[in-house]
């Protein structure tokens, strides 16, 4: 893989900017010699042709949702409508400066206000902040809210957050960044929270619980009402990780399940693209007791004007520079408007149907440790497939068949896990094609295991040496080495 630093110099970026139309004096004259840059950054000067070809070539080494099924469990890799991208590029939104006074950004404020109301409705909760910009950022905001809630009540002994053992790694990390300690709750034989184990932990040192509903096995917490009641009875609060909202969108609401805080992943459920790892948007919905604590500023409506309200003395403060990932929120807004109630419900209907269909078919070939009705995703294992064949082998072989692998080795409670989430935007035909490939790989695992061990052989690179990458870290382009080896 050649980097931009290895493209020969092919001309500077002349002609992008006009010549200076005011009398120029130079950096040293205005700033003095100490403040002016003495050594140019090593960023190559290449022609636009070179830039266009380099990044086009790199893009072709990637796999995106537009290439085919992208069944990453817990990631909800659904199709990203093109309309959303165009809406977010409208100059009225894209070129609005966040420091502009309210009178100049009424369109931005109006849609932020309206989207907030819609998300409150979807969550069944009375307050939403759009400020958090990622799922983990939403979790962190939720944990800040919990901390503030107890601080305001003078109940500062509550320093523990309970987490099921199937939780995503961001949950414990978010709790820790907000200053809490973490206690793990085991799952029962059904893969859901062990109610007795939970009750045994509940006391006045518990600030709350973080749950993923449905959990990371794709199983709905059937005891959800008992769980949240028990936590509330013990004086704690309930946080819901909304990564899996795609499974009950338009059918059920976290507010009706006892959630005190719930984050949306707009980049999962509400169709905004993942962009190779971000930007996302992690709006948080809260129950009545946390509304006054939400981050400032809040977008409010006064008469027929929209405004930013900073006067919230109980607020945790701000968690983002401005109002969150506004252009991402705009894409989600366009999506909700297009879907309406019926469309929102059709999302979860089809997401759950697709997952159960695929689960039913694949469990004949791969072991399904928790064999029951699933929601939008399910977890298989490669254990018992063939001697010496791992989940990593299966995943890499999928690449040879031109398909993105599912999430692997997560959740941690399933050995050799393959966590599959098809989403509603895949057809039965595509699901059948994916299942056939996985079945063929299972057969290969027994008959030609070398094909799995060798895989991938048809990708731009074969298996990468992760150990070397960690042991001998190279995080930046080695200019010196490159200069030495140049002819």
């Amino acid at each position, binding site marked *: 893989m050649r980097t931009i630093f290895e493209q020969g110099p092919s001309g500077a970026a002349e002609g992008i900017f006009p010549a200076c139309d005011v009398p120029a004096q130079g950096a040293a004259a205005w700033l003095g010699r100490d403040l002016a840059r003495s050594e140019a950054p090593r960023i190559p000067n290449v022609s636009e042709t070179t830039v266009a070809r380099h990044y086009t070539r790199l893009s072709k080494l990637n796999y995106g949702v537009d290439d085919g099924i992208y069944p990453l469990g817990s990631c909800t890799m659904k199709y990203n409508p093109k309309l959303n991208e165009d809406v977010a590029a409208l100059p009225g939104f894209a070129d609005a400066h966040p420091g502009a006074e309210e009178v100049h950004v009424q369109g931005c404020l109006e849609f932020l206000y309206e989207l907030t109301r819609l998300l409150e409705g979807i969550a069944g909760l009375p307050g939403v902040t759009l400020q958090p910009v990622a799922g983990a950022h939403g979790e962190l905001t939720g944990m800040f809210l919990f901390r503030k809630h107890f601080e305001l009540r003078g109940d500062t002994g509550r320093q523990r957050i309970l987490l099921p053992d199937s939780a995503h790694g961001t949950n414990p990390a978010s709790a820790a960044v907000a200053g809490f300690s973490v206690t793990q709750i085991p799952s029962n034989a059904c893969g859901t929270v062990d109610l007795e184990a939970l009750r045994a932990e509940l006391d006045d040192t518990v600030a709350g619980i973080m749950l993923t509903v449905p959990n990371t096995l794709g199983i709905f917490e059937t005891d959800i009402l008992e769980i949240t009641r028990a936590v509330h009875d013990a004086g704690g609060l309930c946080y819901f990780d909304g990564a899996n909202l795609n499974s009950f969108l338009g*059918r059920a609401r976290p507010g009706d399940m006892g959630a005190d805080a719930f984050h949306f992943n707009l980049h999962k459920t509400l169709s905004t693209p993942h962009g190779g790892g971000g930007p996302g948007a992690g709006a948080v919905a809260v129950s009545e007791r946390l509304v006054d604590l939400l981050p400032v500023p809040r977008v409010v409506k006064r008469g027929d004007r929209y405004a930013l309200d900073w006067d919230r003395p109980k607020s945790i403060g701000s968690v983002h520079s401005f109002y969150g990932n506004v252009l991402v929120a705009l894409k989600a807004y366009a999506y909700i408007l297009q879907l309406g109630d019926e469309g929102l419900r059709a999302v979860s209907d089809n997401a759950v149907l697709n997952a159960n269909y695929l689960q039913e078919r694949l469990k004949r070939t791969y072991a399904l440790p928790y064999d029951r009705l699933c929601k939008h995703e399910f977890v298989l294992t490669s254990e018992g497939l063939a001697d010496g064949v791992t989940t990593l082998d299966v995943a890499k072989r999928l690449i040879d068949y031109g398909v993105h692998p599912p999430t692997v080795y997560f959740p941690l409670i399933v050995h050799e896990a393959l966590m599959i989430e098809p989403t509603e935007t895949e057809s039965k035909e595509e699901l059948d094609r994916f299942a056939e490939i996985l079945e063929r790989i299972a057969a290969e695992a027994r008959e030609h295991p070398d094909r799995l061990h060798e895989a991938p052989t048809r990708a731009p690179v074969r298996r990468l040496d992760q150990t070397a990458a960690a042991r001998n870290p190279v995080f930046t382009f080695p200019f010196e080495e490159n200069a030495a080896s140049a002819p």
Partner: protein
Amino acid sequence: MRYIPNADADRQVMLREIGRRSIDALFADVPQAVIDAHRPLGLPAKSELEVLATLTRLAEVNTASRRIPLLGGGIYDHYVPRVVHHLASRSEFVTAYTPYQPEISQGTLTVMFEFQTMVCELLGMEIANASMYDGATALAEAALMAERIRKRGKVAVAANLFSHQRRVLQTYAWAAGIELVDVPFVPSGRSDLSRLPEGISALVLQSPNAFGVLEDLDGLKSRLGEALLIVSTYPLAMGALQPPGAFGADIVVGEGQCLGLAMGYGGPLLGLFATRKEHLRQLPGRVAGRTVDVDGRVGYTMTAQTREQHIRREKATSNICTNSAHCALTATVYLASLGAVGLRDVALLNLEKAHYLATRIAKLKGYSLVFDAPFFNEFVVRPSDGDADAMHQRLEAEGFLVESPGAMAELGVPNALRIAVTERRTREELDRIVKILGGKR
């Protein structure tokens, strides 16, 4: 629904395969009380045409984008070469997930590696991560990282930090139990570094600071002793300014919106985060590294993951997972398009034009620059009659977009306006500003 490809007939076949009578039966595990409590939004579906029309109308309600912005304060109206958007919009980049499977994510990973390299080159640092959410959370995470390294429970923070960055830092520090101590500024607009607080894990400075003024970082590192030096900076300005790394900064962060991103009413943004190699184990966020495949071919992969939440859980260096990957990609393509020469050119255009305007305003009767230390492309003006509101109104009346005087007042500089000048402002526009301000009141 056009985003759902299955037809009713497909659904019936699928239900039969799984032995369920209806879609409703797939939700039998959700408590009936929860299902019964559900209320729809009362929202009818809209066609693509209607949604586009509705949102186009709403976009036009925003008059901000049709005015000539003199606003800065961390977000700037910079020109982005057309090629950047075209390349960054390729769906292979846009619709990909985090590169957990490196063999089919070499595009994203190679760009991450290029981005980290460019960030280090810009800031004069040794290692950079693949991005943070924005400059504010990057700064907050820098303070948390310094506290993990030095554990003094206290961080000194310049009073001339952008207000939005300070607010976020305060929230994170409050939860982590870190005490923030203010470092006041002197009349020149620079921080008062003559008496540094004792027993701090780090000193946080911003340069150019909230007044646009460049801090004097020379020799500061050695005077700090054990405390780490954290500098928040303006990445585009690095085309003309000596980078914080050259002055020995331990952690350098910045808001990367200036590197090819839309202002977007403040998001998505791009947090830059760079440090020294010795602090790698405390670095938050994802990092791409170079390695080889089994055939010896060079490739890129996410690495040093033992710091991260999916492995270390509550002991991770941060909870960050999703970051600003696509914004980082855009910044990388932007920097590649400009090259070092183009970056220097654009930084100098900002510097020259801002100084042209500032010099001419300062010569007008009735106006003065509040601070006299060197600045980059942003400066603070005070009318001698103290009526910054009137000054603001006169510029607004002529089609400019100007910050409210409240922004400077919040930083303890009342009756003053902050003005930012980018390469997009023409001499004609700048002369017009001078004429408006110089005219009879």
